């Protein structure tokens, strides 16, 4: 268990008297694709916030790549190699799509205080930005304002921004929400391709995606992981069927 790249140990989070995360232990291994499923309000997004530094846990710890990152700022966690997307689209709506991705690419290539170089002359940044644009099929929208694109296109943009920093661990919060079947399928293949060699933790409501993409699945119910296993094991797990999967598994 010690070779995990991301470990959550006894993680708890309360808002006032309400305990949302009630002691979560979870190990994510390098190269693993893990899906996190659970009913609405189970605490999936809260768990993402705790891992990525958006919220501080009430108790417990997060160990990432050998270091205890509990209490770190989001930017420090990101620089350490953990990138995430958001359930509610989180982009720069009044900037162009190209600029959105370029901002994400720039951090690693030139850093944030570069005031002596003209950005248009940075060939590496441009090439990386264009490659990402092509990957998420937004080349034709490069000059569109991000906020004027359709919802599913904004999801693709956010995926590109998340991947831009070449992270070791990727956290995706419902990346396919609002996408058509064709887009979902394409994005799933894309996620499979770009997360090769990285660890992935994904929250997704589309069970076809979850079962096709994930190596293993963890089920979160009321702030606790009630089961972890391969898609086959989860499908046949009695507790999961009762607590959550019910209709989907029967269908």
């Amino acid at each position, binding site marked *: 268990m010690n070779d995990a790249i991301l470990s959550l140990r006894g993680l708890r989070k309360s808002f006032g008297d309400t305990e949302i995360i009630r002691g979560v232990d979870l190990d994510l291994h390098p190269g693993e694709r893990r899906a996190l499923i659970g009913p609405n309000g189970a605490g999936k997004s809260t768990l993402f916030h705790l891992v990525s530094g958006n919220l501080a846990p009430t108790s417990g710890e997060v160990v990432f790549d050998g270091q205890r990152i509990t209490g770190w700022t989001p930017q420090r966690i*990101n620089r350490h190699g953990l990138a995430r997307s*958001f359930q509610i689209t989180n982009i*720069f709506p009044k900037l*162009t799509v190209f600029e959105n991705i370029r*901002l994400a690419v720039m951090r690693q290539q030139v850093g944030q205080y570069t*005031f002596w170089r003209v*950005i248009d002359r940075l060939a590496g940044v441009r090439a990386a930005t264009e490659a990402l644009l092509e990957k998420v099929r937004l080349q034709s929208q490069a000059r569109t304002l991000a906020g004027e694109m359709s919802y599913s296109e904004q999801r693709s943009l956010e995926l590109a921004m998340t991947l*831009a920093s070449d992270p070791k661990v990727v956290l995706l919060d419902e990346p396919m929400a609002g996408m058509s079947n064709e887009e979902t399928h394409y994005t799933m293949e894309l996620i499979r391709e770009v997360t090769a060699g990285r660890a992935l933790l994904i929250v997704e409501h589309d069970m076809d995606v979850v079962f096709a993409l994930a190596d293993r699945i963890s089920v979160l119910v009321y702030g606790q992981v009630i089961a972890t296993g391969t898609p086959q094991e989860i499908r046949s797990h009695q507790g999961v069927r009762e607590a959550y999967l019910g209709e989907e598994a029967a269908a």
Partner: protein
Amino acid sequence: MTTMRTPLMVAAAALALLGALPLLLPAGLLNASIQALIAALFACAYSLLAGRAGMLSFGHAAYFGVGAFATVHAMNALGGTGLLPTPLMPLAGALGGLGFGLAAGWFATQRSGTAFAMITLAVAELLHAVAPQLKGWFGGESGISTMRAPAWGFGFGSTTQVYYLTLAWVLVSLALLYFHTRTPLGRLTLALRENEHRLRFLGYDVHGLGVSAFALSAMLSGVAGGLQVMGNESANYVVFDAGVSATVVLNSYIGGVGSFLGPALGAALMSFFGFAVSDTTQSWLLYQGVLFVLVMMFMPEGLTGLVSATTRLVARHGFVAVLPLALSAVFAVLLLAGGAVFVVEMLQRLFSQDYRSLARMSGTAPPVLLFGRSWLATALATWIVPAGLLAAGALMTGVARRCHRALVQAASHEAPPSAATLAERALP
């Protein structure tokens, strides 16, 4: 191609005009031009923070003033010979502004929105309160005076030489500000305004970005302060006055804080307007305030917003089609302004202390001298003039509205603009 070349040609023409001003203007107006240039630089420096970075500072007089005093001390250093040759003196202002901006910005940018504005206001007010007590630093009530030492073969005694020195510094500073918009740091400054939260999760230190924008803005405000000291050969603690902070906010927003040269335009126009009007009216501050409110209500993007809206209309419908709208709008504004100014000036005179005591002594309402004529306050004919102007202005406004509606209706038959042109329009 023409769209690429037009801004360049406008810039070249503006540069030529600025270069030729000393030949065209009498000394008084050239002095006003120096003040306008300084106000323009100050407004552009301010707009880097308020416009691009989206942080509304209410205390930018602090950095202007620190730059001014840093420069005056640099000029008086070494027994009056100065730390630097005279043409390089604003560097001291830059350094002062940068240093103080880094310190104040480090605190202020810990917060955003209202709290940020209040911190900047407090810093400036603090300096304004403390400065008169620190005689050694700020010269007390009387301030500190200095002399421009001759350097590099120039005496810097004439207004023309001071003008060219100021112009050179303003242009270099504006070039620096423009360059900043093209750098990774400049792009991040814009992103900071758009979505600070996302920047964090892309690995950026947003506090550091905020401090960098604050410090750069303070540095160039310091240059502006330094230039003012060079021009006036003195510095006084009144540069920390809240009025200085307020003026740069008004100038920038009237010009259009969202565009690069808008604030410079606004500041230059308001400086000249103030210069021209402040001698002839006591209500100058009222006009400035009313103008600001009107711009904010009807043109939130400032004068540059008006310019770009007009260019868009012309590009879309052609010059001839827009002409009736433009003419009727200009006439409406002139008529309304005429009527309003008449009422304000008349009331200002009627309620002045002089007039009231005069009226009390004579027992009647004596005529008021205005615009080279005398008007009777009690005569109907007097008030028919502004009423007629205002009514005609309202009528013209109606005509302008009708022209605009006709244009829009004509446009609705055409195709809507593509997303690409929309994006281009929104690019800074």
